């Protein structure tokens, strides 16, 4: 066996070469030079809507040389909420997570502030409404970037023919496609009269009073329209007020004109009600219309999505924004912020909104007149007013303006719909108010 000898010169040269390679290695841009990143997106209802997000992420990852993993987590059975709770407890998981409405506040200690990227995003895309700030900002710090994916307004979706025939209301005239609304006459009183007329005609409004989101959001908007707050912004109990009494009286009248089983409705019930052609109006994003377009085209071509009726204190519409938040335990925060900036570019937002058929709503004021809403049909322009292009409504969330951690309890315990149902079922006003006050008192605990 021969043995090759290494002379002194060769040894010095080899050592120098190895050292040079070792020192230079981090500066050579390999395929994944900028490290790893994982993102947990909400799994979209609309088929193929996830594709747009994946493409945008891939485009960014290829450019930035990041090894990116994209997961889609369903909200069926609240799987996304369970995952958020698990990642928060374990302090490990995705780098970015798509937080629904209240979850920025409930995980505020574990989220990376994103003010540095939010300022330029707002400059480019326009301002955001107060509900987005209410849910996304704590002590001046943005806890996430408003995500257009999943964000929605749950306004009325009316049957053009039934409303005209039975209630004498031309919803297309109130909310013309491509033009500003002429909806001064669309008030809570007009809404009640229309509900009564449609009930008499056998096509009642399909408004749920269960404990799921659609029911709670509708109740929240009506409460705000009457100026009724259960807990005010400072955390004071404001249950026993005239405004709350007024809205309960309104709901009592309304419930008499709704289907008898609305107390048991979930988020699918109102969609089925509209698609089956049983009612003249529901409160929902355009997903019900989109399904009708596929399964019951004769119903879909009579649907018109429009604004909420105005009440004594204004016109409020339920808005549920999502946020892309970075966990504080993320190991690649600069890359996470860079991705969120990419996803928030106007072109990226338009791509995602298009992919969802107009279901997703950007939170930014310059992006609520995209082509997709004007072009969707039949009938053409059916969702033109869905994003509230003329900003005639106050976009709000049920239980606001209570401090978000208190409001979240009111929202998920469906306190407002329960109050409406209790009172409508014959409980005395004072007993209902006392019950609600007791509940809210419990929610105030810290």
């Amino acid at each position, binding site marked *: 066996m021969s043995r090759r000898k290494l002379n002194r010169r060769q040894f010095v040269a080899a050592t120098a070469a190895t050292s040079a390679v070792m020192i230079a290695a981090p500066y050579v841009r390999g395929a994944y030079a900028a490290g790893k990143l994982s993102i947990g997106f909400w799994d979209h209802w609309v088929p193929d809507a996830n594709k747009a997000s994946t493409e945008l992420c891939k485009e960014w990852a290829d450019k930035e040389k990041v090894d990116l993993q994209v997961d889609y987590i369903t909200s069926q059975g609240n799987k996304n909420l369970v995952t958020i709770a698990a990642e928060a407890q374990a302090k490990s998981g995705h780098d970015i997570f798509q937080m629904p409405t209240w979850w920025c506040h409930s995980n505020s200690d574990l989220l990376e502030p994103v003010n540095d990227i939010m300022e330029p995003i707002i400059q480019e895309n326009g301002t955001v409404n107060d509900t987005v700030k209410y849910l996304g900002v704590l002590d001046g710090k943005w806890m996430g970037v408003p995500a257009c994916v999943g964000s929605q307004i749950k306004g009325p979706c009316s049957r053009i023919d039934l409303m005209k025939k039975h209630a004498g209301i031309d919803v297309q005239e109130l909310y013309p496609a491509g033009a500003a609304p002429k909806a001064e006459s669309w008030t809570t009183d007009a809404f009640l009269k229309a509900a009564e007329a449609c009930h008499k005609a056998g096509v009642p409004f399909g408004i749920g009073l269960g404990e799921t989101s659609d029911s709670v959001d509708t109740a929240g908007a009506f409460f705000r329209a009457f100026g009724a707050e259960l807990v005010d912004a400072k955390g004071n109990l404001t249950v026993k007020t005239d405004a709350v009494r007024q809205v309960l009286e309104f709901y009592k009248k309304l419930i008499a004109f709704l289907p008898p089983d609305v107390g048991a409705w979930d988020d699918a019930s109102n969609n089925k009600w509209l698609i089956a052609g049983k009612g003249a109006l529901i409160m929902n994003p355009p997903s019900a219309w989109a399904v009708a377009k596929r399964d019951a085209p004769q119903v879909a071509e009579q649907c018109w999505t429009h604004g909420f009726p105005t009440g004594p204190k204004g016109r409020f519409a339920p808005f549920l924004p999502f946020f892309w938040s970075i966990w504080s335990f993320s190991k690649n925060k600069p890359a996470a912020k860079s991705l969120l900036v990419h996803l928030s570019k106007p072109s990226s937002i338009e791509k995602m909104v298009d992919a969802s058929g107009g279901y997703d709503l950007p939170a930014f004021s310059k992006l609520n007149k995209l082509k997709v809403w004007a072009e969707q049909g039949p009938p053409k322009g059916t969702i033109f007013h869905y994003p509230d292009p003329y900003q005639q409504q106050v976009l709000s969330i049920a239980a606001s303006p209570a401090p978000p951690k208190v409001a979240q309890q009111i929202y998920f315990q469906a306190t407002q719909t329960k109050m409406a149902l209790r009172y409508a079922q014959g409980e005395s006003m004072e007993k209902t108010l006392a*019950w609600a006050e007791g509940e809210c008192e419990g929610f105030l605990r810290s």
Partner: protein
Amino acid sequence: MVDAAIGETSVPRPRKAAGRSGLRKALKRKSTSAFLMTLPLILLIALLVIYPAFYSVHLATLNKSMQRFVGFGNFEFLFKRDTFWLVVKQSCIFAISAVLFKALIGFIVAHFVHNIPAKGQRKWRGMLLVPWVIPPAMSTLAWLWLFDPSYSAFNYTLSFFGIGPIPWTGDAAWARFSVILVNVWYGAPFFMIMYLAALKSVPDQLYEAAAIDGANWWQRIWYVTLPMMRNIIAITTLFSLIVTFANFDIVRILTAGGPLDKTHIFATWAFRVGIEGSDIPLGASVSLFMVPILAVAAIFILRDVNKRGNES
């Protein structure tokens, strides 16, 4: 077979060798090998049951933002809430009535199946076990469609007889009935199969002796069948009580606790408070409240089983 290996020689060995031999002896013991074989399972249980159990106790002692130790503060808070006591009441109604009906139906059906000739019995046993074999989350979805507020298949059928519509999930009493019915439908086959096994182990001679003594059908059940099945009935009831008290999927899918919280049970309310309401310590406290109730039931039932075991 001996439980320990017997040493071959009494010659003293160096200390290291003695240690090795001690290990060998330990490994040769039946109890040691049994322990080693069950160790993976013990570790799995420790990881998936014991650790989460203690962790939930820890969580239950924290304040809402999980930054401060509050001892029994969460329980004190719960005891003052009307909704909590409503949930306690409903959990008891749900679990006790469901277990009672499951036991009764299981007992009756087990007798029917027992009396079917052996040739066709296997087919019936298989068919009757179907509800128990289907994952409850799936079968409850089918029930949800049957009970649907607006399109209930039951109501559609009843309408031909001029009955209804019945608010299966919209009225508190009917909603409670519905969730209990689905739980009984799902759980009765378990009772049936356990009781069937117990029935098959009752010696025929006892029935023959009872028949010679002139015992009628009821007396044979009361004085022969039931005493022979007591332990199985007790264990099955305990097991089912624990599972039914901790039920989540049926109520969650069918009513989500509504209407007006009238069908919430511990697990569904804990989920509502802890996960949906982001108050994890309070949710953990609601879940843990089941422990003393079930522990008391377990102590009584198991003590009774032990007593009878010692007597026999």
